[in-house]
């Protein structure tokens, strides 16, 4: 993968981590910029009619996509060498994901976490060096959005 060197980004990352607005899933599309700064990522939006796909490219070459419609982020997806920061990407839905992804007895048979609730859906897969996944809110997905388009 290509590596983008952001020598000063280390400082930026830690300065923002303690005081950044809630961003990610379910939040306003404008918060994608906040995520871009937090991840030291370039942000490239592409409009597709009913939704916009914001592609964040991380310094390590990984990518995060944030999909917004009607000014709200309804889905995120990732393809990264390390696990993504789901605290930021899932925003207020991280707690939900965490409790669903670590049910008791999971330690006996380890498996990729999936969440399938009435609103929140999260899928995570891969292995070190190659992780990917998607998360979306059923209530916010625009009509006709092909879920298979989530990268």
């Amino acid at each position, binding site marked *: 993968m290509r590596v983008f060197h952001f020598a000063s980004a280390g400082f930026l990352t830690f300065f923002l981590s303690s005081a950044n607005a809630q961003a990610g899933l379910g939040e306003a599309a404008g918060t994608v910029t906040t995520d871009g700064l937090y991840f030291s990522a370039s942000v490239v939006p592409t409009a597709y009619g009913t939704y916009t796909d914001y592609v964040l490219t991380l310094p390590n070459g990984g990518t995060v996509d944030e999909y917004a419609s009607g000014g709200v982020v309804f889905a995120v997806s990732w393809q990264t*060498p390390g696990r993504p920061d789901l605290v930021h990407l899932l925003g207020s839905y*991280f707690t939900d994901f965490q409790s669903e992804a670590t049910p008791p007895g999971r330690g006996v048979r*380890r498996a990729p976490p999936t969440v399938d609730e009435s609103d929140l859906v999260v899928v995570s897969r891969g292995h*070190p060096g190659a992780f990917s996944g998607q998360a979306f809110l059923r209530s916010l997905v625009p009509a006709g959005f092909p879920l*298979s388009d989530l990268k």
Partner: protein
Amino acid sequence: MALCFAVAACNQRGGGGNTSSGTSSTTTISGTTTTAPSPATGAVTTTSSTATASATTTSSSVPTGNAETPAASLTNVATISVDAGPAALTTGPNAYIATNTPYVSVTLCAPGSPTNCQTIDHVLVDTGSVGLRIFASAIDASLLAALPLETDTNSNPVGSCYGFVDGYMFGSVRQADFQVGGEKVANMPLMAIADAGVFSTVPTSCSSGGGSNLTGVKSFGANGVIGIGVMPTDCGSACTFPGGYGAATYYDCPSTGCGAVVPRRASTTAPFQQLPNPVAAMSVDNNGSIISLPAAPNGGQATMTGTLYFGIGTQSNNGLGSAAVLTTTTSLSPQGVGFLTAIYNGVSLNKSFLDSGSNSYFFVDSTIPTCAQSQLEGDYCPISSELLSPTLQGQDDVSASAAFTLNNAQMLASNRYAVLPGIGVNPSLIGTLNAYPHSFDFGLPFFYGRNVYTAIEGRNAGGVIGPYFAY
């Protein structure tokens, strides 16, 4: 039923380094003996015939040893045991039997000391990760104290985070003289998982991926993990600049607490900084490894022993022979490193991989019923065993059959065996969305009855440059 807790007790033949037979025997509790297939002779010999790497329970014919490399000198082997796991799993509350989990023993010594050493049993052999990570709780206190902490340019200790798909490990980076089988690496960095003091607080950027904080032998299922996947180091170029992170994250850990993310060089020779792939860091036999396990009957068996060979085409016991070589995606690929394409039911799944650290096949097939029992949620329970026929294809367009018999998980689980062939899990719990559209994860059951080769990225392994899997 008697279970084998210690590798030594289960192992009927040591090491497998004898080329005149070259096989690792397995004696199960029931007394049945099966023999693992043996890799072909390597490039060293030119006249011997090639041993086939086929899935068979009969003795495979193996070439006689080369007079120039007598059996006793072949040290590139270690015994693999698939058993119920370390004692911590099978005792106390919430005890359980590890299933389809390959273990090896490793020896750690304080650098330069021939006596301050410990052999740690039941370390998970993992082709899906890179680096050696041992729970601090599994290391004798007197040895742990003598393993120097790696330090950064601030002269502070270095901490490290490593994420797995379902959780994360955080700990100190220490150095040890390391040995596995007959291979040694001096001053090799490793993670002491859940180490004490400043390392007992996990940085938020480590836990932010979610999942379980893997702090204990019981919850993880092993005393540690030896990651021998395709990457030469655990982070590669992603960790070589300030703030940079990838599969691993390294931290500056002064006494006030771990904080800044620090750069670490990706070196497979001393002086190390990142955790190296232990195989890549060996002085010889360092281009890859082979996991060789015997086949198991569909009903499972209590335990199994096999062999981990170091090097591909470097000795008389680790040649490629007739194995199909499937190259994987590289660290330059956008989707990440180490992927093959699986073709299943006519669909191409381009994020597929072979993973000895997974204990099942993970794939989606909505036509196969899943088990009703809650503790087997997601496991496949076909009415009767059925043959499934995925094909695997490399980036080099080489294809090979990956067919296997899928068994009923509930029937297998009832035997309380550690070896459960043909176990499959549907990781997608979502009805309307195929949440696993691109991936078929071939876990340890794929390795039964095969020699599976893992070649390290950038290394010439038997004439083909890694990364690749071969079988």
